[in-house]
């Protein structure tokens, strides 16, 4: 552990948490209970995420501009068998030691669901399925919260991008005079759709990494190799740096031919073009829940500036999960199918036991995302500032200022940082 006495104590509201971060810890207190919860939920999150990233890429690459994409959530086997680049024997960079194809629990769920074996269509109509709408909502949050840094988003407005999109659109609607005529009349309408599809690809590529990271963390925990919250956080930090410059691109396959809308050669990288915008858009900002805020312009409940949005998972009120108008419910329902048994046993002991597991796991998820955000903050500090054991007090001071500005964002009353410090928040 690093000595923290080199600097006088912080006067920040969250001084205790800042000292913990300076000592190499996470925003989440380091208790075995917390570790058990966050690792358990990483696994429950990774299985639907394994579906999300595959389907996001499928939509971006194959469904593309289909005007009536009725079956966009019906993942073909080729995408279930698609090899994750960070798992399996042929991985570019092996993060998870498991299989590169879809996770067995996911395959089992697709086949049987909760209601038993039936056709995919019936599962879908019976709503016995993965709530892919949640992944799309995250994608749309990234798409809409533009200007969060990075070069990916400005690139979508460049002539190169438009030219590539134009080529793909014309190829896709080849022999379809109606759509081609529409494209002629309203070209921006189609270009904008392609931009959205580029974000599908972006998020899909982001989650391809995270799924592998979370699976590996679960395995390490079970092997007894992850024993504390800082270790878990550091695993994510190391993962972030390992995959930081993996490419972000958008490829489309039309009639067997590859169209590179955003080629890998553009040099967009995972950390700056996917991970950081994702954290900003989904963990911090997203959009106000329809069920908790009024969009009435006179009521002024929703801020005017997008940078002031604070409706992400770090701020979300999880208690109304299950209500109408609370989007995270979709994710909580997805995770509910894949909880490890130790987490189910844990939830049974508290509150309403199995009856309110949806909310208990939601709060665990919130804790775990504070751990991920801690990893992101530490990674940013490591990338832009100084090591924690730096001997120069000026450098340590710069680090502290960085941490303090980061934690300023949690001063809002809605922020759940205070709540997750205590185990009583369930």
């Amino acid at each position, binding site marked *: 552990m690093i000595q923290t006495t080199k600097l006088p104590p912080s006067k920040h509201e969250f001084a205790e948490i800042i000292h913990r971060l300076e000592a190499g810890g996470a925003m989440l207190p380091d208790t075995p209970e917390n570790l058990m919860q966050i690792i358990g939920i990483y696994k429950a999150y990774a299985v639907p995420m394994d579906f999300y990233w595959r389907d996001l890429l499928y939509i971006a690459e194959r469904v593309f501009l289909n005007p009536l994409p009725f079956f966009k959530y019906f993942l073909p086997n080729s995408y279930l068998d698609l090899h994750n680049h960070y798992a399996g024997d042929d991985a570019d960079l092996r993060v998870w030691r498991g299989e590169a194809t879809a996770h067995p629990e996911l395959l089992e769920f697709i086949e049987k669901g909760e209601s038993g074996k039936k056709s995919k269509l019936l599962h879908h109509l019976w709503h016995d399925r993965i709530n892919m709408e949640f992944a799309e909502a995250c994608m749309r949050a990234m798409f809409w919260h533009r200007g969060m840094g990075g070069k990916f988003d400005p690139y979508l407005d460049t002539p190169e991008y438009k030219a590539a999109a134009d080529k793909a659109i014309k190829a896709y609607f080849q022999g379809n005079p109606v759509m081609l005529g529409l494209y002629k009349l309203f070209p921006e309408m189609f270009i904008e759709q392609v931009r959205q599809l580029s974000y599908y690809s972006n998020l899909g590529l982001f989650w391809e990494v995270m799924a592998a990271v979370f699976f590996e963390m679960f395995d390490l925990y079970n092997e007894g190799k992850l024993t504390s919250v800082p270790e878990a956080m550091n695993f994510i930090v190391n993962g972030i740096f390992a995959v930081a410059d993996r490419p972000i691109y958008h490829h489309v396959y039309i009639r067997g031919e590859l169209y590179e809308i955003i080629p890998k050669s553009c040099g967009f990288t995972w950390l700056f073009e996917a991970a950081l915008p994702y954290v900003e858009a989904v963990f911090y900002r997203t959009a106000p829940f329809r069920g*908790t805020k009024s969009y009435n312009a006179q009521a002024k409940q929703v801020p005017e500036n997008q940078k002031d949005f604070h409706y992400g998972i770090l701020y979300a*009120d999880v*208690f*109304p*999960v*299950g*209500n109408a108008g609370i989007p995270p419910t979709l994710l909580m329902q997805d995770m509910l199918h894949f909880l490890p048994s130790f987490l189910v046993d844990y939830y049974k002991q508290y*509150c*309403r036991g199995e*009856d*309110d597991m*949806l*909310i208990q796991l939601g709060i665990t998820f919130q804790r775990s995302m504070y751990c991920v955000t801690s990893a992101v903050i530490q990674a940013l500090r490591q990338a832009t500032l100084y090591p924690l054991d730096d001997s120069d007090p000026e450098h340590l001071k710069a680090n502290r200022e960085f941490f303090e500005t980061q934690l300023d964002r949690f001063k809002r009353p809605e922020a759940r940082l205070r*709540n997750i410090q205590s185990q009583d*928040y*369930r």
Partner: protein
Amino acid sequence: MLSVLIIIPILGAILVGFFPGNIPAEKLRKVTLAIAVSLIVWTVEIALKFDLNNPHWQFQEIFAWIPQLGLTYNLGVDGLSLPLLALNSLLTFIVVYGYGNNVERPKLYYSLILLVNAGVAGAFLSANLLLFVLFYELELIPIYLLIAIWGSEKRGYAATKFLIYTAVSGILILAGFLGITWLSNSPSFDYNLISTQSLPLITKLILLTILLVGFGIKIPLVPLHTWLPDAYVESSPPVTILLGGILAKLGTYGLLRFCLGLFPGTWEIVAPGMAIIGTISVLYGALAAIAQQDIKRMVAYSSIGHMGYIIVAAAANTPLSLVGAISQMVAHGLILAILFHLVGVVETKVGTRELSVLNGLMSPVRGLPFTSALLIMGGMASAGIPGMVGFAAEFIVFQGSFSKFPIPTLLCIIASGLTAVYFVILLNRTCFGKLDNNTAYYPKVIWSERAPALVLAVAIFFLGIQPIWLVRWSEETSNFLVLKSQIEIQSISQYLK
């Protein structure tokens, strides 16, 4: 046949109360439940054999008990008492089923509940005035104990207040009955043998006023109502259900049976005043409920308001309005029971009844969604939303009384709008909004706690959609009561000429 309804609960009370040894509450509950079920079965049996075309006493049982006093054991049932008997059996069952698995002193508790049932059933069945007073007083002591032992903080005050008010009510009723019988030189206290026709008008008015005050306390009418909010609020939920659901009906029952039934002509003279007092009750109950900050107190004041409709209907004294009055008694009994039950569930789970603290109970995972949904339904039923029993009863009342008392009726309709106002306030603060994350770790509601409300909800909906099952019992009796008063009015006017 009718005695069974009195003997079973009394024997049951003795059996449960003096059960040797230490019996766990759960076992006693099962025994009491079996007794309550047998009462329901017996009530259904009576209803099946009941002759709908006969307005008079049916299944009469008479034997001389203390002839020197004129006290005969004279039971009978007619269209006025049958629906209330059924309500009594149902609510007793619900109270026993829904509560008391871990009550303190279970023997005494169940024994008293059965005694209340016996007292109420006896009063509804009595065709002898002294016998009625006997049962009327019999129900007083167990209820006093039920409030005083199992009530909440201020139970002592509330119980004593209830006891004094109801005892005064009993004394007035007894005085009225003695006066009627002795002054009219009736051979006994038997209901059918008494005729007040020969009495001078001024005597009849005095006797009627005594009875009106006596029953008015029990109903309660507005200036005499102050025992009610305390007694209802300080009682435990099952006792509140019995108090509001069925005991208050003794007052309105007495009003129809004895005030209207024994003074059919004189009633016409006091009727305008009664209509006004009833209307004041309705308006006062609604306005007072709007001002409350405690949900149980709101429901208690709503009870005062809803009993007022019965007074207006009884005052109008048309065949339709009397059917409406009886229907409203049953409707109010069911609705008040479900509301008090649900308020009780909210209080035990959330730990408060304050409007300013309650919030977001509709939340499906962490809140009390089922309870809230039924609470909304109960509030709507109470406010007179069509499709539920409250509307059916209130509409018959309004329809029946408008021709006689148009302005009081219109004021009552306005007040039923105010009912909607305070129920919307209650539902908005309680069910809507969001849960408080620091406190919202409420225990879940188990099925046995939901079941009573579910049974009542089914009854409320069924009678709201098929109101014929509500009114068919009392049509003939109502017609007969109106006919009787018309005949006497004619004779009065002849006499005045």
